[in-house]
């Protein structure tokens, strides 16, 4: 098999590729943050009249809250009542996730294999 000689990349091209990558990296990581897509979906349901009792904190727990420097139950009303709603997802979302993750790995492994065959053929010569 003929040896593949890659084109030499110009300085400008190198810089351009770095910029593309930077935009992709920052974009992929910052966009979900900006669109509010990242982060946990925790909602708190503060109780109307927060006391340690209504917040269901036992005396031992109250002792620890106090030790942490928190003596006013109202100040941790939101923290204590915040909950994830795990059952809120739809089956469709779950299916989308499964398809995306598996599809991604299938894509990568298949494309890799195509490239890998070329590498092996050039390194070790064509099959006898």
């Amino acid at each position, binding site marked *: 098999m003929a040896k593949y000689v*890659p084109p030499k990349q110009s300085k400008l091209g190198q810089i351009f590729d770095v910029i593309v990558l930077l935009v992709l990296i920052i974009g992929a990581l910052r966009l979900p943050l900006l669109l509010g897509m990242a982060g946990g979906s925790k909602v708190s349901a503060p109780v109307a009249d927060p006391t340690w009792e209504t917040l269901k904190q036992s005396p031992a727990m109250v002792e620890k809250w106090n030790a942490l420097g928190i003596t006013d139950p109202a100040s941790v009303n939101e923290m204590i009542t915040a909950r994830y709603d795990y059952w809120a997802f739809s089956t469709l979302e779950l299916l989308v996730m499964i398809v*995306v993750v598996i599809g991604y790995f299938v894509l990568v492994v298949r494309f890799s294999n195509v*490239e890998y065959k070329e590498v092996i053929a050039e390194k070790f010569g064509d099959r006898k």
Partner: protein
Amino acid sequence: MAKASQAAAPAVEKISLLRVLGPAHVWALGVGIVLVGEYMGWNFGVGKGGAYAALIACWFAGLLYTCVAMIDSEVTSTVAAAGGQFTQAKHIVGPLMAFNVGLYLVFAYTMLEAGNAITIGFLVDTVANMAGHSGIDQRPFIILSIMFLAWLNYRGVLATLNFNLVITAIAFIAVILLFFGVAPWSADSPLKHADLMAGDAALPYGWIGVVAAMHFGLWYYLGIEGTTQAAEEVRSPARALPFGTMAGIITLLIAATLTWYVCAGLMPWEYLGQAGVPLFDAGRLSGSTTLMVLLGIGTLFSTLASANGCINDASRAWFGMGRDHYLPAWFGAVHPKFRTPYRSIIFLVPVALVFALGAPLDQVITFSILSGLLEYTFMPINVILFRKKWPLDTIKRGYVHPFHPLPALVLLALCAVTYFAVFLGYGTQLIAMVGFYIVVSLWFHFWRYRFVKRGDQFTMPWPRPRGY
């Protein structure tokens, strides 16, 4: 074979990374990166499922990482080059996989580094508040920690990892001392497990909370696989890497269990589940000023050690990709005096800063965990293909992991559970992240790969893979 030894003959003057590290440095690199997971972050798992859920997640994640360490040790003891899993993927699965793995590494470590810097800022703020100064500007401390460590890494790997060895050891000892300090065996111990985990507080979400907690369960250990990044700088990689990695996993299992035990006995789960510096809080609640100061120092040291190791690993992976022209060749440069991949180190500083200064901690951590998770999913594929293309009798391995393919299948199953765990509560972030990897994969396959030499990527002196 002949080709590799020809390349080794110094025809022209060349510079490369330095082989100066021993097994203790490997341990320091691995544990140094990860131990911070005990000082912050793991406790978000308590928030996702309660204290018991976090413990179960801790052990299942321990099992996951034992599989990771076994598989990784076998492959690494054979493929020893900077870039670690990146180089493994290139030789075993193929170039596109390697490109993706390289990015997983860079992201997992750079995001972890950003998380560490955020924690340092938070710690300074907490201490300043306790000293009666409110409203301190956290930014200079975040920037300083990143700049200082970048400088240290720039100046050379031996000093960097010696520094890590010392501060990691101190942070680990602090956890042990805390455990003895709260004296769980005595009657007046401040630990109140039974009271704090009674009734609803035991498993606030039921069993699905246990699954959800797996998400942050990874955080107890995330990054231990980074030991392989040092392969090109270790004096005897085939022995030092498996040894350092296994010793690291054992250290972490001990530290993780002790941390959970002390923290769950000192704080209500609602507080623990969102705490920024849980072990420091535990030190405060222990009632001993000495312990509080010690754990404060431990938090600072563990975050520094971790960010330090992250800069080291991320820059090696980026460097490895530059050297192969997966990225612009410019990044493949070695500093002629310090022998470090200096341009890669510089490039990653602003990336880390962007996230350290502008993103919430749990989300930065989730980015890091997701990249790690994708990497662990790659590992079973990697080892199964490795055994298929080069069966045991074809090349010499420094370490052969037992019960193949059981560890690979267990790892795959645990990864599947963890994807679901991340999906619970952080689903959109997961899909956005995988979407990014699909886009860059297409970019690489259809554009970037044209600049890569083909046969030359295969640098190991191995025979032709079976079936090709």
